[in-house]
């Protein structure tokens, strides 16, 4: 055994050493042999039972939320597809009047926006929420109410956003909404605000989902499922979620800045006042390109799993595939400016981004050849999913190759913004995401439906879509070469474009025919269920094919390999007979086992919240808040915002309660604690993920500030005096100190209930200090003569201060909530997650304030 940390990690991963001190010998107890007492399954069913009728709105279980989520995302796929058909009809011949110019411009903006933000990202996230708990054999994801909230916010917000097209108020600036076209001067109507609104919802639900998935994948895997044995989809979702956490803050900041510019005239993107339109492009594409991989990687994970089943052999190159997923995630953050080659970037920069764009195709190549090698190593069994999988490999490779082409700078100068790009991106997205999704529908439908889908109709669906795709998009490469720019509502006759466009339109209807056949198949065969499902139609080897109910599996298996169902023929019976972990409800409540992140050793039992009306209420009022803000009904907006916060607090109120027992037997006589605090707790992981999100927003904000200084320093004024900066820093350091003290008190009192008000009082003092610091920081800049609408400096500085103000406001609400709970005697040691989370959040807010104050006051200095 080596003492180097990397070796330790590897040894732990391979199961040679223990990660947490858990004795691996205990694994030998499973499967157990003693008969289980009667009534355990019935009790599980009772505990995990769902409300019926209108009560379904209060459901939080992943079986339901995941299904709602997938269905809603698919609805948006259909809606955005109908928009595409409308566009293709308009372009079938030159100078047609089918869609007037304004309508067409709204259609293509909505098509792109809805497909990217309301279909693709939510769809892969939805599939994750639906499949991951079963795949990891967890009872549910760790934050079911958060999932429910994210889903309902997306559902209500997404539908309202989409409805803007029916009243002619849909955004019309293209899905990447470049200012100044989208600034108030050129888009004075509220169309653009609707876009920002729609994106706002998907930002909320994507971040919430990412936190859920990171913590879920790392902490709720079945015991023994080391990282090295994790299903490839879980790996893909882990990388996906980490990428969301890094990439989405950039677009969150971008949309905030654009809205601030539109609402208050802060000139982030206005070059006449020291802003720069290209700042938006950097912020957007720093998110926008990883976004493509955010969509592709989960689909690739699904592919890897289906390929193994279709070929009836383990995936070839498992570790290479993991490496490819992680490498894609890394490299994808270094390619964003390849969307900006035509903006007049310096040659050195284009060279770098070109190289990175080439590099990112290597991991894609690895995955493709892993799939091909797997098909060669096994023996294919043809089925609808197999057709879609093989078809998607071909399509994706073709799209990837045109991607390599446009990664070459001189070629891109020609192809950029033409129909060649339209062809490229549709090949990549259809081959990389839509086809795998259809394969997955056929493959996994057995988990949620009493019947399988029809193999006969499935073949029709595939061939229609596959043919239609090439008929539609192959000619577009040529229309691009012939000089047809993208985003044109019409084109002139006599330019040779008529025939090719007509062919593309016909192709679009062939695709649509395929989708219609799929809908027919759904209507005929799909019947939602959580218990008597059609099961493992294609003979998959991973845990989601264990017998399940609402509670997921009866007992949580010990995982010894990557395809446990293939390697252990008895595992289904043993799991159903309760011969593994947690064969019952140890506490009489909803619960799941939290395991260690690398090695999946059991650590503690998490109690999970059940159905509640508060997440859906919070989501509805969050949606109302944003919608009212968009249509400038400020009073109603404020009211909804307050109610939404109230609903969130109400939903939290009943969580984190004292319980009668400290420990529980999770089977085989293994006793673990119930609910813990500190670095091992799932709440700690979730909060830290959120902190990364907020930190990234601030990082991108500071980037914007420095970027604008680099573009036009002549607008910059001197910062407030140094002494004041020191004072602000001192206040924030004091806040940090109070938080530290509060944690000390927490650590030093192992008793059940805290005597006195010490810990929360320290937190409250911290929050008060935060308020004082932000007030001083803000007024200091005002006194120094900085105005937010006067310059890029003013705009970015006050944007950062505004963000800090929001974070401080949240900290104050949390401190008050903590105080109220303390007063009610609900802060219970040693497991008060609430206290743990609140003081940590206040501590982070202090650090964030410190970073903002120091950077913008000290650089570039006087």
């Amino acid at each position, binding site marked *: 055994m080596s003492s180097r940390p990397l070796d330790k990690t590897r040894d732990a991963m391979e199961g040679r050493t223990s990660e947490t001190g858990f004795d691996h010998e205990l694994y030998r107890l499973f499967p157990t042999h003693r008969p289980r007492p009667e009534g355990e399954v019935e009790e599980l069913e009772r505990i995990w039972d769902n409300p019926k009728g209108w009560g379904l709105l209060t459901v939080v279980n992943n079986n339901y939320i995941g299904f709602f989520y997938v269905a809603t995302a698919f609805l948006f796929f259909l809606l955005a597809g109908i928009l595409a058909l409308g566009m293709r009809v308009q372009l079938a011949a030159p100078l047609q009047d089918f869609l007037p110019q304004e309508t067409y411009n709204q259609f293509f903006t909505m098509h792109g926006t809805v497909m990217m933000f309301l279909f693709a990202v939510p769809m892969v996230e939805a599939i994750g929420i639906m499949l991951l708990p079963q795949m990891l054999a967890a009872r549910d994801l760790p934050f079911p109410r958060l999932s429910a909230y994210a889903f309902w916010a997306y559902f209500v917000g997404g539908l309202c956003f989409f409805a803007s097209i029916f009243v002619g108020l849909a955004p019309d600036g293209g899905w990447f909404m470049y200012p100044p076209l989208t600034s108030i001067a050129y888009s004075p109507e509220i169309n653009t605000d609707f876009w920002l609104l729609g994106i706002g919802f998907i930002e909320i639900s994507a971040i919430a989902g990412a936190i859920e998935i990171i913590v879920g994948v790392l902490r709720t895997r079945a015991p023994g499922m080391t990282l090295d044995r994790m299903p490839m989809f879980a790996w893909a979702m882990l990388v996906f979620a980490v990428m969301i956490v890094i990439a989405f803050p950039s677009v969150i900041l971008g949309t905030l800045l654009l809205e601030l510019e539109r609402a208050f005239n802060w000139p982030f993107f206005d070059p006449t006042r020291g802003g720069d339109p290209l700042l938006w492009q950097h912020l957007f594409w720093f998110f926008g390109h990883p976004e493509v991989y955010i969509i592709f990687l989960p689909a690739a994970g699904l592919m890897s799993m289906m390929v193994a089943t279709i070929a009836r052999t383990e995936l070839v190159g498992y570790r290479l595939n993991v490496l490819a997923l992680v490498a894609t995630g890394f490299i994808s953050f270094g390619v964003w400016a390849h969307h900006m080659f035509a903006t007049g970037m310096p040659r050195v920069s284009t060279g770098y981004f070109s190289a990175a764009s080439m590099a990112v195709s290597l991991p894609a190549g690895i995955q493709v050849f892993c799939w091909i*090698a797997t098909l060669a190593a096994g023996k294919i069994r043809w089925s609808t999913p197999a057709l879609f999988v093989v078809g998607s490999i071909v399509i994706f490779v073709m799209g990837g190759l045109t991607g390599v082409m446009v990664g070459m700078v001189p070629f891109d100068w020609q192809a950029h913004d033409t129909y060649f790009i339209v062809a490229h991106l549709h090949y990549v997205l259809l081959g990389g995401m839509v086809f795998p999704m259809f394969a997955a529908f056929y493959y996994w439908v057995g988990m949620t439906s009493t019947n399988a889908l029809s193999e006969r109709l499935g073949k029709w669906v595939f061939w229609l879509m596959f043919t239609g795709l090439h008929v539609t998009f192959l000619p577009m490469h040529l229309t691009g070469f012939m000089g047809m720019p993208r985003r044109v509502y019409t084109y002139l006759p006599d330019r040779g474009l008529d025939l090719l466009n007509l062919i593309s339109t016909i192709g679009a209807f062939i695709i649509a025919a395929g989708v219609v056949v799929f809908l027919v198949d759904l209507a005929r065969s799909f019947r939602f269920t959580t218990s008597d499902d059609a099961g493992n139609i294609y003979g998959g080897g991973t845990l989601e094919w264990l017998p399940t109910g609402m509670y997921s599996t009866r007992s949580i298996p010990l995982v010894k390999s990557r395809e446990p169902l293939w390697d252990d023929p008895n595992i289904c019976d043993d799991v159903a007979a309760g011969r593994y972990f947690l064969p019952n409800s140890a506490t009489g409540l909803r619960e799941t086992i939290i395991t260690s992140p690398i090695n999946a050793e059991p650590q503690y039992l998490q109690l999970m919240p059940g159905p509640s009306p508060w997440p859906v209420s919070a989501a509805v009022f969050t949606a109302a808040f944003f919608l009212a803000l968009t249509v400038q009904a400020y009073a109603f907006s404020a009211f909804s915002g307050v109610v939404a916060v109230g609903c969130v607090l109400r939903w939290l109120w009943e969580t984190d309660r004292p319980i009668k027992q400290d420990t529980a037997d999770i089977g085989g006589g293994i006793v673990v604690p119930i609910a813990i605090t500190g670095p091992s707790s799932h709440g700690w992981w979730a909060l830290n993920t959120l902190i990364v999100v907020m930190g990234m927003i601030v990082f991108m904000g500071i980037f914007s500030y420095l970027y604008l200084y680099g573009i036009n320093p002549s607008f910059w004024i001197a910062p407030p005096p140094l002494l004041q900066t020191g004072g602000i820093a001192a206040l924030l350091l004091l806040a940090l100190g109070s938080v530290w003290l509060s944690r000390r008190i927490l650590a030093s009192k192992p008793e059940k209930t805290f005597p006195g008000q010490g810990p929360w009082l320290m937190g409250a003092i911290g929050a008060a200090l935060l308020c004082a610091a932000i007030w001083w920081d803000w007024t200091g800049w005002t006194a120094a003569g900085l105005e937010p609408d006067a310059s890029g400096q003013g705009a970015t500085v006050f944007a950062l201060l505004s963000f800090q103000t929001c974070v401080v406001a949240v900290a104050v609400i949390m401190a008050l909530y903590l105080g109220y709970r303390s007063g009610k005697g609900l802060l219970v040691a040693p497991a008060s997650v609430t206290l743990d989370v609140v003081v940590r959040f206040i501590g982070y807010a202090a650090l964030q304030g410190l970073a903002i104050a120091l950077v913008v006051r000290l650089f570039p200095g006087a």
Partner: protein
Amino acid sequence: MVSTMSNPASDIFDAWWGWPPPVLDPAGPYADSVVVLAWALIGMGVVVTGIVVAALYVAIKGPERWRARLGGEKAVWIGGIAFPGVVLTGLLVWGLTLTASLTEPVPEDAMRVRVTGYMWWFGVEYLDEDGDVVMRDANELHVPVGRPVVVELFSEDVIHSFWVPNLSGKEDMIPGRTNELVIQADSPGRYGGVCAEYCGGPHALMGFVAVAHEPADWNAWLAGRRTARPVAADQDVPGEVPAILPAVEQTGGTNLAGRQLFMDSGCAACHRVEGTEANGLVGPDLSHVGSRLTLGAGILPNNRGTMIGWIGNSQAIKPGNRMPSYDMLSAEELEAIAIWLEQQR
């Protein structure tokens, strides 16, 4: 609609889009080398797709022995890492070298023009060695054959993009920035151009024409514009009488009526006509509109009929453009204006 007015035989269209695809049909050195690259990339795309499809075929239907070879990590290393690694590195080196050669410092003898993007047309200014404006025009760029031309790209409102595929790749026109693009035509001809960056509204109908002349013809063309009236009348020394009076002043008749109507109908508020009191800068400069090949920013051939149609009903031809339809004017009045504008060459 445009279709009823445009003349398929019109000579502006013969060199515009269509066949052969202009991206693959270079007319100058800055497009030439890219075409070689483009064909190489297309070839690579076809070959690699072929390889992958063949590999899939072997994996699914191939003989046992071949499948065994393909079915291991070694195949991934070769097919997924080594092969693309070599191909991509080669391409990258080529691409970087080509980028470098295309962005080399501009030759000394380069001509300079300034092209400014507006919603939804292009303003064109010809510059002399000192960077002063020699002549203003719109939606049309005349260049001499064989001489590099530096196009300074600006925008007055939103982001546009300047693209003449036969002559070079595209470059964006960004408010607050100046981008420079070098183009060169090696054979005389008319080359279509468009705005490639979505700029709202009728972006689809924002085009222009680049016309390459033999150097002597180009000089003659320029001289033809310059003799029509003094250059940049507004920059002349106050009090000095222009050497050459605008041609229109000497003609009289309908033309003067057209001129009067032009001034009285508000056209002058947006359009500039050199040597007259029309000094608007919002719309395209009309000092030489009679000599232009197209109207409405590259969408209509320029003749009296289309001119009348454009003035009277521009909103039907190019919905959303900034020029109102002058449908309150009678047919005779429209014709009078059209005739006068025809003479602004």
